[in-house]
């Protein structure tokens, strides 16, 4: 089974990414998706993208990355959180 590496980023790598990490861990575990979640600052994503499959970020992405990126503000505001769950699952299962 493939193990996915997911970068979870926010501006400071401290507050909102912590919420997203927890939500993703639960989501992927419940769906039997083998993964490693790495919490980081958005400024670190550019240099770490080569080691990962997916970026999930609460901040605006400052640049284009080589790997797919999802915006995760829905997990913070609560609006559209389930839809985002589905989007991420669909992407990983595809």
């Amino acid at each position: 089974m493939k193990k996915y590496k997911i970068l979870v980023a926010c501006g400071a790598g401290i507050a909102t990414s912590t919420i997203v990490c927890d939500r993703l861990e639960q989501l992927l575990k419940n769906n039997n998706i083998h993964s490693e979640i790495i919490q980081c600052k958005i400024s670190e994503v550019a240099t770490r993208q080569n080691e990962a499959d997916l970026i999930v970020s609460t901040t605006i992405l400052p640049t284009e990355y080589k790997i797919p990126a999802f915006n995760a503000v829905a997990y913070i505001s609560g609006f559209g959180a389930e839809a985002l769950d589905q989007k991420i699952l669909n992407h990983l299962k595809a």
Partner: protein
Amino acid sequence: MGISQFLKDELIFTEYVCEDQEQLFKMIHQVAKENVYVYEDFFKKILQREKSYPTGLSVGEFNVAIPHTDPECIIEPFISVITLFNPISFHLMDDQSKEVDVSLVVLLGLSEPHAHLEVLQQLMYMIQDKQCLDQLIHAKCHDDVVSVFKTTEEISNRGN
């Protein structure tokens, strides 16, 4: 760990009047500095961080902002709650090109990355729960704010 233990009496403001983010951050910085919660660079850092990575959230009827910055400029962790008499403008977290009028600011002065999950979850619960948010936004005094935080904590503890 509960969210209310991070509240500091001197950092709760209700129906606060100010012009913009800069004024608000400056005031918080001064109070936090006097109480030795932050280092000197806090003001500069939080202002800069809000510019680069804004924290405005659109949550239905009201808009909320959760400014925070590098843990390195925090001495003692705190959460500052400010309800605004006149909303002030913040850029949206997920769309820097859009500005929203924010009525509630919850400023997070957290010192340990990754360590505050429970506190953050309680905060998100408050923001996402319409009744909690309503009560916070219409808080008239310290006690109103503290009471919403305590209630959230109780709900969260029951859930665990």
